[in-house]
């Protein structure tokens, strides 16, 4: 069997590195995490000519090998660790033809590590439009590499790229410049002290906080102590290195690249004139958000209704097909309604991920960062906080990870702390079903009331995030050096393949992640709801018969009374009644209480839980929505889900920190339990108080 070739894709952000990755691997890819940290790890398999297979890793984007974030560190750690099973046989440096100069900085650094290196120049289809011509032969010679021109948009150059990867053994491992000239004395001493090591490797180890695995640590023992220079001196030397590299690159490109500006047609300027305009820029941003919410609501209602009724009839079908027994009822009343409660939200979650992917891919997100920085700074946030706050509408977990590129620790911490207020897709199930129950249909200025309510809830979440950021900014006493750099990439039409793969991947992981929890919880709930302690539960039939002896119940009515009696005296009923006093002031009954408690693990469990509880309590085939609409308030009469209790529930979910995974991520990213615990206590208290006020005021 032939050996797999390890290929690492490395490059600056916004070079289309992921498009190259998608073009090479297609659907043969998987997304996971690097062990111990939450950096996303993308890897895939690519079939090369002559039956060779390549294992391809899409490394996080970085501007250089001088890491300033966890994501960038991953790149260095892999490149320095020969023992890593993913250590590349070949590094394919992906660059953007329009930003060749800047992209080559990283390339020259990787060359110094003496790894076989291939230069992939992406977006080659733009060359003519931008008036760029390249002297490939000259560049290959100067840069000691092979160059492949690729256009992922036009699907050009991919075959050639695969060919070059196959021939990786022929690639030169010679550095293309001598960086140690910046301080010959120092580097000579270093060389003498560690004669067996690569000089550039040593330099990286000295200047970075590289976290090596156990196997590798001995190799660099003592290097970190080779500190004959102060921190300031080292920084100055790094700057000198950067300037040196740029000098080399400038010299090479002067001959190897010609840009005829008269040929360049640039849409960037025209677009930016409007999209970053002081007035139009903000207006357009607002309109885009409005469109997204309206679309999520309107476009997904048809597939959602279909899914809802499909699951209801599936339950019914199973009940009819299988013999009656605990297994059948667990399936029909526990698992299927529970899963239905999550599957129903696939359309909306997919739409949300779709919009976010398009905003990111098109380059528009950077403009929003630019527009919002000044405003956000007033609240102790950074313009870059807008990305977590927007992608937090999908899920707080990737959003909190996206705070990593915020350079200032205080701004980053505040962003992490307030992001869970934004309305994530797990709240959507709860919102949608309650809105459908308590907000009337009808339209105002062409927008439905229900969509407007949803929009309002998003604004409340965003407002809560901003307001608490403002308070945190005043309270937290953290001094940290601030700086802010954001690249403004050129506008691009999003590639269908990239967007589709992102949506597919994210939706899949949402459904399976949530699905596992929901499946487990619905089984537990079903058991707790179907069995109870003591004589009251055992003799249910007798008790109900005696109680209603005077009334002449039909068989159906009797069964219903029996079912609801059993539920009340089951384990879950008893627990629910115990906590009822705490939640009655908010307008909830014990069933909602159980749903709130079980949704503590994850918000979307709420709907699944209610679905399970209600289907245990009834016999008929019905959709979740209809069952909830039919619930009666045990004390006041009238529907349980009325305007007051509905609003109270909506607000509770708007503020409550009901997501264990988010707490875990916050713990990881802040490296302390203090912050997630603070979030949990404050958000839950806030949720309770607001819901209480709302219900007492509206009832």
């Amino acid at each position, binding site marked *: 069997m032939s050996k797999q070739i390890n290929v690492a894709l490395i490059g600056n952000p916004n070079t289309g590195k992921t498009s190259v990755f998608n073009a090479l691997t297609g659907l043969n890819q998987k997304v996971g995490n690097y062990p111990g940290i939450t950096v996303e790890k993308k890897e895939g398999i690519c079939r090369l000519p002559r039956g060779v297979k390549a294992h391809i890793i899409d490394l996080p984007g970085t*501007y*250089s090998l*001088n890491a*300033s974030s966890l994501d960038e560190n991953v790149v260095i750690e892999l490149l320095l660790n020969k023992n890593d099973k993913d250590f590349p046989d070949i590094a394919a440096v992906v660059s953007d033809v*329009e*930003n060749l*100069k*800047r992209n080559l*900085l990283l390339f020259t650094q990787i060359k110094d590590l003496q790894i076989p290196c291939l230069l992939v120049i992406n977006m080659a289809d733009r060359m003519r439009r931008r008036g760029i011509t390249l002297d490939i032969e000259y560049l290959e010679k100067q840069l000691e590499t092979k160059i492949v021109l690729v256009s992922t948009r036009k699907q050009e150059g991919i075959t050639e790229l695969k060919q070059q990867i196959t021939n990786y053994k022929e690639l030169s491992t010679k550095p293309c410049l001598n960086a140690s000239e910046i301080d010959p004395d120092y580097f000579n001493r270093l060389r003498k002290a560690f004669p067996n090591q690569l000089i550039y490797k040593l330099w990286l180890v000295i200047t970075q906080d590289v976290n090596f695995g156990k196997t590798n640590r001995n190799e660099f023992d003592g290097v970190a102590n080779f500190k004959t220079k102060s921190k*300031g001196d080292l*920084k*100055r030397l*790094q*700057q000198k290195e*950067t*300037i040196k590299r*740029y000098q080399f690159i400038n010299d090479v490109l002067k001959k190897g690249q010609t840009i005829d500006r008269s040929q360049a047609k640039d849409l*960037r*300027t025209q677009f*930016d*004139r409007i999209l*970053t305009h*002081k007035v139009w820029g903000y207006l357009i941003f607002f309109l885009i958000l409005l469109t997204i919410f309206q679309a999520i609501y309107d476009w997904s209602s048809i597939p959602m209704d279909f899914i809802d009724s499909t699951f209801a009839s599936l339950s019914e079908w199973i009940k009819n097909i299988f013999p009656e027994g605990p297994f059948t009822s667990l399936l029909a009343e526990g698992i299927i309604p529970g899963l239905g409660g999550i599957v129903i939200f696939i359309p909306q979650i997919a739409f949300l991920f779709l919009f976010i992917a398009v905003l990111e891919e098109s380059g528009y997100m*950077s403009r929003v*960062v*630019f*527009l919002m*920085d*000044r405003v956000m700074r007033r609240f102790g946030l950074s*313009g870059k906080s807008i990305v977590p706050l927007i992608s937090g509408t999908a899920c707080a977990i990737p959003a909190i990870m996206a705070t990593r590129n915020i*350079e200032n620790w205080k701004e980053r911490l505040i962003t992490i702390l307030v992001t869970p207020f934004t309305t994530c897709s797990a709240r959507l199930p709860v919102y949608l079903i309650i809105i459908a129950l308590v907000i009337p249909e009808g339209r105002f200025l062409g927008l439905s009331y229900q969509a407007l309510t949803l929009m309002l809830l998003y604004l409340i979440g965003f407002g809560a995030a901003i307001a608490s950021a403002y308070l945190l900014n005043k309270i937290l006493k953290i001094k940290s050096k*601030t*700086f*802010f*750099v*954001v*690249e*403004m*990439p*050129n506008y691009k039409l999003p590639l269908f393949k990239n967007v589709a793969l992102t949506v597919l991947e994210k939706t899949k992981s949402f459904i399976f992640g949530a699905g596992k929890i929901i499946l487990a919880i619905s089984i537990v709930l079903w058991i707790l709801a179907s069995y109870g302690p003591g004589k009251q539960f055992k003799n249910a039939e007798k008790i109900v018969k005696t109680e209603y002896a005077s009334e002449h119940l039909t068989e159906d009515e009797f069964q219903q009374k029996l079912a609801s009696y059993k539920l009340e005296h089951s384990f879950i009923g008893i627990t629910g009644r115990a906590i009822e006093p705490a939640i009655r002031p908010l307008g909830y009954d014990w069933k909602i209480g159980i749903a709130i408690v079980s949704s503590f693990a994850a918000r979307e469990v709420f709907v699944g839980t209610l679905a399970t509880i209600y289907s245990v309590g009834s016999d008929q085939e019905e959709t979740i929505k209809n069952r909830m609409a039919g619930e009666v308030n045990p004390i006041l009469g009238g529907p349980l889900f009325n305007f007051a209790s509905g609003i109270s529930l909506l607000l509770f979910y708007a503020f409550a920190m009901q997501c264990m995974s988010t707490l875990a991520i916050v713990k990881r990213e802040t490296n302390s339990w203090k912050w997630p615990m603070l979030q949990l206590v404050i958000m839950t208290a806030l949720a309770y108080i607001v819901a209480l006020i709302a219900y007492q005021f509206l009832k």
Partner: protein
Amino acid sequence: MNDTLANLKRGESAIITDVSSELIPLKLLEMGCLPGNHVELVQVAPFADPMYLNINGSHLAIRKETAIHILIERVHE
């Protein structure tokens, strides 16, 4: 008084003459903000902050507080 990047108006161009090494992050240098490079102010957000720059073909935005540490010489055209 030396002219800094923060004084540039929209549409104006200059050459970067010096970058204060203590106050400017390495990352900015790596993105092309180096002495000798040509810089153009493409767009400003309200209150002229942040600033959207084109440095030698590299487009990026920085805050005014960073821009005051970058010395420039105007290009007279």
